[in-house]
């Protein structure tokens, strides 16, 4: 009756969120007086989950599952839920996991609460706090089904060390009984660069940049900080930046430690989408820009003067502080 957590990996290596969801699963297991079992696909570093409270790893070893497939992955996770008789399943909030979660919920007739921001309010009844209304509010959602699925928000709970003795079992993948013949043809992905989903720092810019030709300094600032780049909705609608960079209510949510908004006035939809970020910094020449009311720190000034200075000073700072 353990808690089952799906820990995502890529080319055998765990993603950052794997340790966060494992930590969350440990917190739930502790509340319920049980242990954590993880399921992973073709991982080469299962032992590392023992640092975060996982007692057992079921590693699906299957060459046909090197690439994510929502139908096949959800089928294997559903099998693991049955074999471990897990009552609670913990997932991340990555795009892939949000693809498989509803398939898993349907297979298990399980209630699913996504975007959960803290350990359960209670486990009997099972109630979790999650963001709703695109981060403009929170819902305390009670899951009434026998099996419960919890999707944990990115960077909300954090990875917490809980050294635990761990065993690893290799299992084979389950086949999806449904007629899911959806297949990956090609993956086009930026390599070696932080993504909005898992970056500690996000540098975002808006119409105040005046045109796409001025994004060089935004990218340079992001490089210095090891940050992902993002943009406001008008900027992606104008085609200045790709849609994948649009953050806000109808774009991607941001939950980074540091969010720097440059030349973004702060429409309510944008503020909602980035509100889960821990520290927000605004650079804008308009002191009346609404974003200043939602920010922690700010500089009132022209981005074309402030940003180049910030790049230089941060380079010096990084050189001194490693």
């Amino acid at each position: 009756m353990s808690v089952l957590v799906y820990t995502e990996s890529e080319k055998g290596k765990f993603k950052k969120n794997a340790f966060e969801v494992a930590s969350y699963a440990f917190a739930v297991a502790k509340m319920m007086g049980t242990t954590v079992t993880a399921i992973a696909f073709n991982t080469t570093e299962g032992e590392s989950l023992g640092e975060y409270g996982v007692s057992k790893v079921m590693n699906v070893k299957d060459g046909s599952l090197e690439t994510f497939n929502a139908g096949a992955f959800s089928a294997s996770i559903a099998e693991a839920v049955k074999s471990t008789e897990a009552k609670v399943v913990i997932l991340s909030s990555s795009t892939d996991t949000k693809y498989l979660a509803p398939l898993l919920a349907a297979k298990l007739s399980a209630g699913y609460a996504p975007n959960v921001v803290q350990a359960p309010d209670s486990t009997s009844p099972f109630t979790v706090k999650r963001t709703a209304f695109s981060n403009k509010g929170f819902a305390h959602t009670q899951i009434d089904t026998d099996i419960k699925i919890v999707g944990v928000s990115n960077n909300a709970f954090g990875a917490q060390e809980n050294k635990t003795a761990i065993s690893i079992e290799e299992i084979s993948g389950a086949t999806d009984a449904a007629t899911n013949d959806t297949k990956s043809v090609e993956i086009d992905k930026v390599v070696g660069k932080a993504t909005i989903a898992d970056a500690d720092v996000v540098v975002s810019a808006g119409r105040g940049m005046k045109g796409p030709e001025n994004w060089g300094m935004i990218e340079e600032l992001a490089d210095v900080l090891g940050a992902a780049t993002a943009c406001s909705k008008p900027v992606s609608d104008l085609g200045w930046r790709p849609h994948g960079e649009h953050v806000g209510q109808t774009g991607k949510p941001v939950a980074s430690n540091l969010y720097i908004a440059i030349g973004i006035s702060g429409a309510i939809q944008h503020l909602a989408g980035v509100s889960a970020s821990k520290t927000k910094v605004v650079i804008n020449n308009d002191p009346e820009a609404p974003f200043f009311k939602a920010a922690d720190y700010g500089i009132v000034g022209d981005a074309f003067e402030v940003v180049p200075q910030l790049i230089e000073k941060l380079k010096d700072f990084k050189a001194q502080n490693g």
Partner: protein
Amino acid sequence: MKILVCISNVPDTTSKINFTDGDTKFDTNGVQFVINPNDEFGLTRAMWFKEKQGATVHIATVGDPTVEPTMRKALAIGADEAFRVNAEPTDGFFVAQQLAEVVKNGGYDLVIGGRESIDYNGGMVPGILATLTNMNFINSCINLEIDGNNVTAVREIDGGKEKLSSSLPLVVGGQKGLVEESDLRIPNMRGIMMARKKTLSVLEPVDGLKATEDKKFDKPAAKGQVKLADSVDQLIDLLHNEAKVI
């Protein structure tokens, strides 16, 4: 091709969110309701299929009679016929079960819903619906082409995109990218007049699993005053020594 677009009736993106009845309900007072933006991209893509490749487009919504103005708007944009399942859409699993009945009875080749609604953000209706109806499923879809029975789609992934092949029948969780913002349509007077004459059938709900209940809501804690830095040096100092984020 027969297409069903699932539409959720949601507060306009500019809405201020408040709760009522001891923070157990969303306060709809003074709130303007619209077609869920993620669904509207799907509806517009469905219109393109209709105009370029030939298709019948139906819409379905789970909700009480107050959702009908939003459904009429979708009909005014060009959908042919509408189904309203007369039940409160309180839980994603329940909503998916209701829509699954509409899908089974309608024999649709393609079902498009939004990746998530912008109010309750469950993000589960299209995926559960696909499983219940034994259809293929593509989520966070940003490009969709159909040739005969063959589907080529692109979905968003963290840090990029993935091209997929699939086949009909298919359920899609859509979002911006299916069409662009500038492609969205505002109903014209002729469309609005025609929409009044189109069939909007009311169906009674089937028994379903109510998997979750939102017991209570709260709003984010009020934000403290912003600290304005006079110089870049001061900002870096604040971020390093006070916020400890660099």
